[in-house]
């Protein structure tokens, strides 16, 4: 075990204060009675009830969830295929271009992706709405899924899959019965990542949506531009709470799964 020096303790403390205090202030002041967001005037939950009575926000939230579920599900299938092709696919024509197209969207500024997709959709004559946002979100999030899944595919032992093939499984059976269960945690976290990226996206949605579909970030954006508002603080608190619960639950579940796998391994080791 290594001992932490004073310098390390200070940098950790500073780092986490820096990361968390802004969000903490947001959460605390969402319960503020006053409309003035920096003056504390007593505890109140009125901004939450006002938020829940606001139909425009609820509609936007529904559109956002629909887009996120659809795009992250398609992105998970395509991204897992892409990861499999990259890691196990061997050489094929245009492989460099393919891997370039997987890595480039990870860092591409959103204004460029959004603008180019919008111009494509207009050129194709597609009506902008939920469908076009789903197409756009799927495209960039499949790349994130494929990076997450391929890092798992690289570390796991290929001989397991080969053993299944040697024992007469078809490649599809080998994938379904051997590979997929092993990479499942990565596939699930890829889906979660794609889902949150879609929930979060403002710029690409602003470019690719039409008047028929407004997402929650677009709605937040139009009210945030006018300054700080307690309603947005309340909405932020709800989102932060959901993310925290989701991430903590997911990490506990994966910890448990890892423990179970370890126990199984030990059992198997004892039997041989």
């Amino acid at each position, binding site marked *: 075990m290594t001992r932490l020096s004073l310098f390390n303790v200070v940098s950790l403390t500073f780092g986490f204060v820096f990361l968390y205090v802004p969000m903490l202030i947001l959460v605390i002041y969402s319960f503020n009675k006053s409309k003035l967001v920096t003056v504390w005037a007593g505890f109140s939950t009125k901004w939450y009830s006002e938020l829940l009575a606001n139909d425009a926000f609820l509609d936007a939230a529904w559109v956002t969830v629909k887009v996120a579920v659809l795009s992250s599900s398609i992105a998970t299938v395509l991204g897992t295929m892409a990861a499999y092709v990259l890691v196990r696919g061997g050489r094929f024509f245009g492989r460099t271009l393919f891997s370039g197209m997987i890595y480039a969207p990870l*860092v591409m500024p959103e204004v460029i992706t959004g603008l180019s997709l919008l111009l494509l959709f207009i050129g194709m004559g597609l009506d902008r709405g939920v469908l076009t946002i789903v197409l756009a979100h799927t495209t960039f999030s499949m790349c994130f899924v494929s990076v997450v899944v391929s890092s798992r595919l690289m570390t796991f032992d290929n001989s397991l899959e080969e053993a299944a093939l040697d024992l007469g499984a078809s490649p599809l059976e080998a994938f379904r019965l051997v590979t997929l269960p092993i990479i499942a945690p990565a596939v699930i976290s890829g889906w979660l990542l794609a889902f949150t990226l879609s929930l979060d996206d403002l710029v690409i949605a602003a470019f690719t949506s039409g008047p028929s579909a407004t997402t929650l970030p677009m709605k937040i954006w139009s009210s945030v531009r006018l300054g700080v508002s307690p309603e947005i603080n309340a909405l932020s608190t709800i989102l932060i709470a959901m993310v925290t619960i989701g991430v903590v639950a997911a990490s506990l579940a994966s910890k448990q799964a890892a423990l179970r796998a370890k126990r199984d391994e030990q059992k198997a080791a004892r039997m041989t």
Partner: protein
Amino acid sequence: MGQLDKNGRRAAGPMKRAILIAMPYTWLLALFLIPFAVVFKISLSDIELSIPPYTPTMKDGLWNMLSRLDFENFVFLTQDDLYWKAYVSSLRIALISTVLTLVVGYPIAYAMARAPEQWRPTLLMLVILPFWTSFLIRVYAWIGILSNEGFLNKFLLWIGLINEPLTILNTNAAVFIGIVYTYLPFMILPIYSALDRLDGSLIEAAEDLGCSRIKAFWLITIPLSRNGIIAGCFLVFIPALGEFVIPSLLGGSGTLMIGKVLFEEFFSNRDWPVASAVAVVLLLILIIPIVLFQHNEQKQAEADT
């Protein structure tokens, strides 16, 4: 299906492999690469007031098309001060913020890698958690902190460090803070994973051989975490260069960033050809760092296997 390969296994038919490759490939070609071609084409066309507001230049044959292409929009970019100033100022802001993020992030990643083993998963989760929280909300949180009557000024007045509120919101300083804050996990994670893999006995050996602690850090820790530093810097620099949300919310009228210019050119002025030309030039600036980033990632991936 039924045929066996040389090892006696049932091989996937070439058709199936081709389909597996073709699906994600076609998707990315159609929705990532082709859109860039469209942008490029529109950047070379004229504005027109009908909808869509540009004249397509690909109607009557190749020759006609070539003769009608014009670089007017690109010439326009060089004539108007606004654009090149925005490019230069974006580069400057992205560069300074990347350095600041590295300075803030490296000690955190280092301390995480030195922390007791049983703490590390929790620390890692604490760094990743903000990344899962809405980007927009994390930027928004700083408005209330940095404004003239915000929490930071109140705190500084209270401890007596300043006598009158500092103007931070709507300046470049606020943009730096915003970028460092939102991109910090992107810097910490690759550096942490590089430092985590670092063999501690190397540093002990250096210290045993008479290196001072600081010298061992410079000669061993920094070079061995180089790939992590490079990856982190690219992950911050490239998206920061085209950043739109942060300069719009935290920056002032003096904050020129190309992402903001592009957004306004497109949505407020509705000048699509010029917006496309702005995007093409930004893309050309970014191609070198993106290729370097991808190269670094692939090298890393190959080193892992």
